[in-house]
């Protein structure tokens, strides 16, 4: 497994020379890669036995330079190796290649990420909202939306000074 991991690291670094690796305190392998190379990296990893896409999700860090982040967890079942890949996205261009052509399961995971963060996945077959209503006009998991919905009018009660 050690040798295999060196191979995996080699694949990622060959595809993206700006790839950043770190092993966190919980022995999980983290790679931060660029948006332009993520599709090629995951494709190459899939050819090397990472057949199982565990999860795709997003996160929003409004105070950082690259506000949005997509997090992929993929698993190699034969070597029992799981790695985490992260892509930082500039808030002006929220686009990342879709993985649906590699993993069918990515379809709804990406739709969910789009629904909650407004990140669009290029070449996705049906990028529409999935859990929220279709006519919603914002992406609720972004940090600028407080938990209490400020657009609500039913809670205003002038007699109680609210």
């Amino acid at each position, binding site marked *: 497994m050690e040798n295999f991991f060196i191979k995996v690291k080699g694949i990622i670094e060959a595809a993206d020379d700006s790839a950043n690796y770190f092993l966190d305190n919980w022995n999980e392998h983290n790679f931060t890669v660029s948006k332009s190379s993520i599709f090629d990296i995951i494709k190459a990893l899939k050819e090397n036995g990472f057949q199982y896409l565990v999860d795709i999700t997003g996160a929003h860090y409004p105070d950082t330079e690259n506000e949005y982040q997509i997090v992929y967890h993929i698993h190699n079942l034969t070597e029992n190796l799981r790695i985490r890949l992260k892509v930082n996205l500039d808030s002006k261009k929220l686009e990342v290649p879709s993985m649906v052509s590699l993993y069918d399961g990515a379809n*709804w995971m990406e739709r969910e990420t789009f629904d909650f963060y407004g990140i669009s996945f290029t070449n996705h077959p049906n990028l529409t909202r999935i859990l929220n209503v279709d006519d919603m006009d914002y992406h609720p998991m972004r940090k600028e939306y407080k938990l209490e919905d400020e657009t609500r009018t039913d809670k205003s009660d002038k007699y109680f000074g609210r």
Partner: protein
Amino acid sequence: MSELDLNQQNTAISSETIDGQIATLNLGPTHPATHGIFQNILQVDGERILSAEQTVGYIHRAFEKLSERRPYNQITPITDRLNYCSSPINNIGWHMTVEKLIGAELPKRVDYMRVIVMELARIADHLVCNSVIGVDTGALTGFTYMFQEREKIYDLYEEICGARLTTNVGRIGGFDRDFSPGFYSKLNEFLKEFPKRFDEFSSMLERNRIFMDRCIGAGPISAERALSYSFAGPNLRAAGVDFDVRVMKPYSSYEDFNFEIPVGSDGDTYDRFMVRQQEIRESLKIIQQALDNMPEGKYHADIPDFYLPPKEEVYSSMEALIYHFKIIMGETAIPKGEVYHSVEGGNGELGYYLVSDGGRTPYRLHFRRPCFIYYQAYPEMIKGALLSDAILTMSSMNVIAGELDA
């Protein structure tokens, strides 16, 4: 007609059964046969399904957003409502995620206690699924008997934590109390009586000609397709992939136990049913082993910063009062970082992706919900099948609305 390749999934369809008149049928959202709020817009030709489109989100409750406002211990009740057929697994999975983040070391006894609770939950989950497969094939009897047994599992939960369905069992760091003597006597009685009842249920369905004819070949999926769709749990194993988080990434001392992972071959309804049946038997074995080898020790970890002190001490000792206050008011320092932890839930890998910025609430919490991920394969699995097989396929996939929509 020609653009729909009917034979792609089910080669058993002969061209005579298709008369070319296509109708749109809304199956759900509130249909008694779908066991939850699921809408499927079907294109049907007679009783053959040409295509299906699911609508999900009817009971979306924004759990991930809610979690960003709640302290860590208050998120446990949210996880109850994911897969409500096996709430303890969700609760304990969440506790273990936080324990991983804070680096808590747990006594062996807690691990074993958790294994017992989680395996009971797995039995309850699989019992619901399998007995409902029976109902959908027309065998209501097994369902009524197995629900009595499920009630006994709920009685056991009640002995542990006082609740039955949405259990909120345990705490970060272990359990709030030790197992009571009443729990052990009830558990021993359950382990003695349940296999007899379960064998009756098995003998009613497992080799029943009508049931087999109905289930074999209904809603099949190949191992390759199942992997591509990121299937997990019994549904993936029914397709022939031996992936089980309990073995691949052991947690809570599962490596100490001797059990087998049942694997199917065709990925059809019958295989899913049989995998679950066998898993119930394996779970019973695990519970027995955990009971026999239960280590001595404390029922919680020694982490005063996160584990609430006993109430009597809060009233009498200074330290306990301080810790109590800090935990309740969310003043405890939580390490920064991000962790992903997964457990083998009733339906497969239930993952928690947690990002902590050191505050009292998670910065980001994402639930990897197996139902949500594998339900997308449903149209492919029922394409070309009969309407009644579609119902059966859905119940054998054990799609739980709470987990689907989060």
